[in-house]
């Protein structure tokens, strides 16, 4: 860390502290969903559709059912009769989503029937014996083809393949384009990829007939999971108990296995034994929740000869795949930062969500922001190139200045704080920008293709739900709260509970450090833990870079309530007003009379045992809860189409230096610097790690990763041999430069960082590749930029 938090010294937060959760992972004692076993548990394997689109005429499971060990074969038709369709993010009453294909299979790999057997091995044997009679139908894979009136319809009852086509104009876009001396237009593509965790989705459900309670152990990261299960199964939510203490083996937005959960929940209620579905990698990659945004950007920018950008027009066409769950909402979130970190005075945005015969798109780290940032940054580079200006200079001229915050962008979001120029300056200084340019030019002089990349991007954080009412007026949700319950037991130890699961973000560590900070108690003596859903306070799960802000805020507020209770007990016993007392490390003394002290132990003992020493009418025991509303939340979008999306905005800038092998198209990253400002950093190691991981995801998206379909509608990237996750060889050492501009909206000035790195790395790598190609007057604007794409551009015309 290059600089201490400027505004205040903290005792526990902001310091390096070991991450509590790590202790169990390094000893093989994690509690992942596949680690839970129950007597008599049955296993599910899926029959999958070989067709991109087909009518399911008949399913004959008799041979499978005759195999010893096979207990049941569940079809979409049976589910359709007994459950409620799953929720859709948009208002699409005629698009019914059932966990298994019902009447029609709509993508290759779609789950058509679930085989239940005594072991996964037997279930897979039986899958081969289920005979499905399909009638193949016309299908559509390309989203632009899908928008044509003659295209085969994915959901005929919806009447169109267009799920959403909305345009917003913020400011005088036409006027600004007319008055600007320059404009340029281009198309950029972000191909279907995602953050692919190493653990697949795993869920076990167990119906307890005696309690009439459905217990669920799942590798889940999803808002309102218990509620969604209950709705689908027509159960009250208090009959569903999700065990949020299950460790989730990576998610980054994706672990949203509501279909899987509904299937095993239905089965355990029907068969009266625990049922597990542990996706294998093939089920996971083709039929699970693995596919992310798949987006075409048509961009236009109006600018002047000084490189000042005046207005932008963005059209984003997103291929949602086959079933629109929350995927289309990923078109809404980027409105949060639709002009990036730049002072662009007007903007228009046309968001189009299209359904095709591909696997459904799911939420991915950044919720649509990483693709949008890539498109915006590509635009800024193009402005610089068109004027012959340096890319950093164009950015400096357009970046919002530190004295302009809070800054309201045309679409209505107010950026809380930032010091973009300083971060960029620090980064360029540390990275030795001029020397990197010299190094690049020296490589070029040797005949190599070398490029220096630059991106300056925002990470909106503190996730709220504003994109829901923004894209779906029937949804009037305006809170996206998070809660914490703290109890101090009779012997004085502190336990804090959250009502959600964790997939690597270190929430236990977060709770302990924040509560320790407020109560001035050693975090190592505090236990932070996950409540079961049945005892949990409202939560919206760790999405949208929100937990440092939201869980941190809830925990700090609950801890303040505990502190207040302690002060009141002490005041009552000292017979003094509270403002005469000093709280120090849990003990409370009288100002100016340091001999008069009540210790933490004494105070806690009074709260639990000596009601006669408590203030009249107070609540015995020592516990507090707090449920936090998202800062700046609570409002519906305005009638003029403006909306306050996420509250906090972190800033990141990336500088990679790369070379390209002219003859093979291989990219080598020689050097990588990144500047990062996410306000007050609660745990430096956690923020550092998430940022490095985000950069690795970004490099994967920029160079390697794509879910590919062929013209026959077959998914070609169904295994780890076909979908390429970068290894330790492909990810470089990254030098990170920190800066700390606190948010005025949060408890300690913290902003989110769960999506950091990923929001700027793809743009930066693309910038570097295009800088390397620039001397040849070539460019690429489609991600990923794979060896064959780069080499083909360089040499393909020779064929």
């Amino acid at each position: 860390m290059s600089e201490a938090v400027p505004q205040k010294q903290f005792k526990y937060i902001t310091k390096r502290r070991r991450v509590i959760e790590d202790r169990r992972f390094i000893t093989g004692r994690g509690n992942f969903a596949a680690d839970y076993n129950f007597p008599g548990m049955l296993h599910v394997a899926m029959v999958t559709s070989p067709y991109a689109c087909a009518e399911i005429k008949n399913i004959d499971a008799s041979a499978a059912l005759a195999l010893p060990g096979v207990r049941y074969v569940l079809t979409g038709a049976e589910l359709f009769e007994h459950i409620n369709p799953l929720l859709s993010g948009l208002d699409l009453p005629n698009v019914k989503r059932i966990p298994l294909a019902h009447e029609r299979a709509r993508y290759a790999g779609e789950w058509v029937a679930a085989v239940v057997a005594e072991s996964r091995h037997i279930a897979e044997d039986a899958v081969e014996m289920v005979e499905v009679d399909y009638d193949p139908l016309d299908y559509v894979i390309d989203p632009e083809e899908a928008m044509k009136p003659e295209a085969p319809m994915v959901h005929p009852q919806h009447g169109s393949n267009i799920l959403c086509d909305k345009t917003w104009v913020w400011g005088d876009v036409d006027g600004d384009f007319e008055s600007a001396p320059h404009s340029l237009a281009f198309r950029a593509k972000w191909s279907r990829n995602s953050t692919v965790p190493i653990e697949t989705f795993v869920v076990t459900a167990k119906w307890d007939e005696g309690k009439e309670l459905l217990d669920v152990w799942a590798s889940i990261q999803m808002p309102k999971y218990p509620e969604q299960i209950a709705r689908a199964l027509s159960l009250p939510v208090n009959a569903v108990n999700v065990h949020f203490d299950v460790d989730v083996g990576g998610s980054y937005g994706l672990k949203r296995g509501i279909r899987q959960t509904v299937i095993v929940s239905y089965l355990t209620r029907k068969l009266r034994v625990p049922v597990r579905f542990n996706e294998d990698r093939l089920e996971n990659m083709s039929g699970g929740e693995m596919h992310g945004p798949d987006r075409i950007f048509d961009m236009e920018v109006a600018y002047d000869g000084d490189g000042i950008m005046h207005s932008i027009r963005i059209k984003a066409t997103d291929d949602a795949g086959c079933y629109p769950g929350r995927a289309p909402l990923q078109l809404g979130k980027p409105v949060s930062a639709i002009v990036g970190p730049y002072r662009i005075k007007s903007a228009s945005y046309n968001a189009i969500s299209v359904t095709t015969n591909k696997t459904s798109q799911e939420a991915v780290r950044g919720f649509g922001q990483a693709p949008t940032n890539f498109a915006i940054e590509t635009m800024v580079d193009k402005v610089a190139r068109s004027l012959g200006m340096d890319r950093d200079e164009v950015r400096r001229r357009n970046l919002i200045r530190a004295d302009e915050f809070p800054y309201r962008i045309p679409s209505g979001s107010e950026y809380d704080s930032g010091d973009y120029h300083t971060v960029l300056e620090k980064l360029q200084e540390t990275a030795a920008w001029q020397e990197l340019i010299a190094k690049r030019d020296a490589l070029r002089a040797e005949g190599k293709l070398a490029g220096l990349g630059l991106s300056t991007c925002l990470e909106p954080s503190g996730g709220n739900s504003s994109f829901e009412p923004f894209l779906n007026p029937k949804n009037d949700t305006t809170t996206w709260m998070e809660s914490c319950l703290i109890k101090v037991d009779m012997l004085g130890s502190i336990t804090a509970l959250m009502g959600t699961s964790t997939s690597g973000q270190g929430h236990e560590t977060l709770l302990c450090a924040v509560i320790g900070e407020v109560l001035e108690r050693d975090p190592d003596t505090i236990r932070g833990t996950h409540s079961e859903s049945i005892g949990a306070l409202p939560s919206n799960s760790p999405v949208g870079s929100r937990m440092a802000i939201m869980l941190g805020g809830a925990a700090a507020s609950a801890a303040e309530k505990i502190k207040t209770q302690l002060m009141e007990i002490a005041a009552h016993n000292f017979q003094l007003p509270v403002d005469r007392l000093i709280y120090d490390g849990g003990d409370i003394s009288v100002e100016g009379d340091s001999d008069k002290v009540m210790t933490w132990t004494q105070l806690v003992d009074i709260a639990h045992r000596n009601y006669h020493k408590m203030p009249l009418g107070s609540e015995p025991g020592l516990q507090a809860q707090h449920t936090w509303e998202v800062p700046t939340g609570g409002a519906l979008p305005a009638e003029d189409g403006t909306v306050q999306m996420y509250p906090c905005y972190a800033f990141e800038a990336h500088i990679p230096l790369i070379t390209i092998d002219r003859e093979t198209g291989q990219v080598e990253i020689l050097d990588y610097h990144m500047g990062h400002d996410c306000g007050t950093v609660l745990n430096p190691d956690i923020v550092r790690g998430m940022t490095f991981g985000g950069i690795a995801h970004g490099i994967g998206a920029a160079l390697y990763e794509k879910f590919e379909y062929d013209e026959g509608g077959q998914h070609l990237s169904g295994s780890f041999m076909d979908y390429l996750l970068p290894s330790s060889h492909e990810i470089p050492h990254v030098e990170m430069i920190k800066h700390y501009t606190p948010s005025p909206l949060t408890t300690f000035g913290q902003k989110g960082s769960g999506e950091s790195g990923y929001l700027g790395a793809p743009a930066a790598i693309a910038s570097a590749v295009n800088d390397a190609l620039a001397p040849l007057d070539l460019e690429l604007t489609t991600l990923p930029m794979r060896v064959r794409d780069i080499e083909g551009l360089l040499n393909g015309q020779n064929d």
Partner: protein
Amino acid sequence: MSEHKITLTVNGREMSGYAESRVTLVDFLRDELGLTGTHIGCEHGVCGACSIVLDGKPVRSCLMYAVMAEGHEITTVEGLEGPQGELSPLQDAFWENHAMQCGYCTPGMLIATHTLLVENPDPDEEEIREAIGGNLCRCTGYQQIVEAVQMTAKKLREAT
């Protein structure tokens, strides 16, 4: 189809169980022997989450059938601690450097780097990256893992 009684040495203890021929070693370790520290990521030999030590060498336990391990010696992540549950220097360095997030690839990473340090107590960054080149991590970008191994190597050197 054949079922076998399989006896092998796991983390210094002789253990036995039954498995069909087709049960992979990782499934056997997890389901039959209850050692759930070794994880399954891809079941086709790419991700390395199931890495174990077999006769002193790191290997994929999803690419072996359990019956093939009969009579062999295996170390899993559960075997890296000392007899009193004390952390190995490598485990401690993974913790100190927060060389993980979700923890799912961590057992495999520990196995890969543990065996590296046995063979090469002073690896450079390239050698560390080579040793974990077959272990995929989606959380960390690998950097804190490399740092943890570097710290361990340094500590081990200073101790000798």
